[in-house]
């Protein structure tokens, strides 16, 4: 289903990652006096996560878009597991948690994978967007507190409810908009139907969100002075945020050719992704600080920490999706 432009982009990303991995291997062999080993380790962890993302893209695109939806669903499931494991729940939340993890998470992705249904007796096919865009924020958010109340434990009730709702919203609902991009019938900004595959758009989105993280971090290292919130993150600065957002816009503009956007539109979209990415990173840092963990990965030793890697994507996906749906669909 991927077309020529998408293949070119994916190929470029793979080659770049390959080169970066070689550099990472070379860095690891360097004596620890000349280079900070903690930094090298973080670099290699990042690279591994990016390889995994690429694998999901390639694997999913080769299989079909349903494959991509399933893989994103597994990532959601794992992220929600990490989220709930980290937050303190009580005995009375057990059934509600079961519903959240075993019912609502798969259902959200099943609805996205089905896309549209034909109801006999009706001419037009029903777009399930109307259901999956409100299922978690409305129905799950009403059902879960009721289920917790039925369990009969009122201690810290609002707090516990909010934890589960936030977990579902960030890890499942928001992330699910990324694969939902594959089901959008697109048009360009002149209103002409866009003939090429949506896979390019998904890859554009994931790539730009990851690049925005890298740019914001790099600009923060080079020019960072004023911290955005010093008690929450010691690495996020206004300079990093501004420089990173502008650089992301620039690179995004240069990638306009895989998307239905024009150059300036691609730049704007990329900057929106960067801003949402900063929001995501800061929010997840706040949650981590509150729980007293540095990385979701160290929460349970040896786990890769899925949540650490997808915070940008989670926050940017719904906004990117809705902007695209509104203006280019």
């Amino acid at each position: 289903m991927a077309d020529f432009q998408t293949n070119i982009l994916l190929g470029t990303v793979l080659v770049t990652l390959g080169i970066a991995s070689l550099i990472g291997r070379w860095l690891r062999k360097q004596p620890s006096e000349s280079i900070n080993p903690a930094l090298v380790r973080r670099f290699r962890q990042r690279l591994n996560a990016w390889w995994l993302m690429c694998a999901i893209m390639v694997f999913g695109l080769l299989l079909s878009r349903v494959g991509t939806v399933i893989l994103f669903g597994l990532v959601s499931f794992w992220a929600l597991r990490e989220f709930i494991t980290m937050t303190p729940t009580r005995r009375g939340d057990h059934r509600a948690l079961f519903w959240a993890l075993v019912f609502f998470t798969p259902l959200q992705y099943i609805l996205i994978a089905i896309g549209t249904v034909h109801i006999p007796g009706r001419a037009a096919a029903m777009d399930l967007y109307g259901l999956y865009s409100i299922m978690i924020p409305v129905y799950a958010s009403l059902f879960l507190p009721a289920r917790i109340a039925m369990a009969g434990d009122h201690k810290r009730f609002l707090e516990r409810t909010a934890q589960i709702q936030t977990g579902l919203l960030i890890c499942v609902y928001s992330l699910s908009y990324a694969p939902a991009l594959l089901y959008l019938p697109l048009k360009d900004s002149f209103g002409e139907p866009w003939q090429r595959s949506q896979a390019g758009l998904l890859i554009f989105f994931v790539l730009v969100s990851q690049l925005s993280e890298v740019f914001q971090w790099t600009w923060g290292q080079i020019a960072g002075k004023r911290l955005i919130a010093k008690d929450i993150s010691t690495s996020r600065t206004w300079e990093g945020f501004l420089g990173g957002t502008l650089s992301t816009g620039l690179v995004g503009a240069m990638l306009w050719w895989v998307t239905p956007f024009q150059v300036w539109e691609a730049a704007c979209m990329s900057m929106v992704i960067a801003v949402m990415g900063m929001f995501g990173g800061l929010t997840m840092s706040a949650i981590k600080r509150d729980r007293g963990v540095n990385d979701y990965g160290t929460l349970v030793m040896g786990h890769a920490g899925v949540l650490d890697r997808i915070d940008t994507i989670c926050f940017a996906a719904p906004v990117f999706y809705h902007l695209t749906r509104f203006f280019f669909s």
Partner: protein
Amino acid sequence: MAAVAHQSVDKPVVGGNEPRVELTPLQRLTGQSITLLARFFSGFTVRWIDCQPDMCQRVYFANHTSHLDAVVLWSALPRELRKLTRPVAAQDYWAKTRWRRFLASSFNALLIDRREIKVHQSPVESMLKEIGNTYSLIVFPEGSRAEDGEMGQFKSGLYYLAKKRPDLELVPVYMDNMNRILPRGEFLPVPLLSSITIGAPIWLESGEAKSDFLTRARESVRALKDR
């Protein structure tokens, strides 16, 4: 004892006091599936701290908060050790139906009657008889599952095991988060993540009093919580 009588059906005694467990292919397959399911539902990470996997005879003793504990700890061991390790499980639960008996035999469970304990056929005696010179044990010295995640007092079985077989390595294990995955009174597990910490073995010191030893054993498990 009914447990022994039942197990003698599919576990022929070979050579003196060393009973070998021969599993049928179906039991082996079930065992593998149980391992995979346990891995999925508990998402565990295993850490060996000051202790390495070894074929020597051991008693792994852990805190007990969930029905899944025995199966999960057994699944967390390397494959070669799983064959040689028998979780001790309650006979009143696991021998109740044919299906449960089959499951128990697939993960190599050693069923102990915790209701009718007689002097000449104490659980410790039958455990020692069953493990011979080959098997290791997984025990939960609290006896029953803790209600709120806080560890209860250890029952004396561990002490008698150590006293009668001073050569057994007593390995403390701390299992974290299992009470959230399948708490008491629930039957559907919520697949969260958990961690299993396996610590340095302890032994019964010569002349150590029973209560001192049990307190020390309990502390060795509790200390792993913060490692």
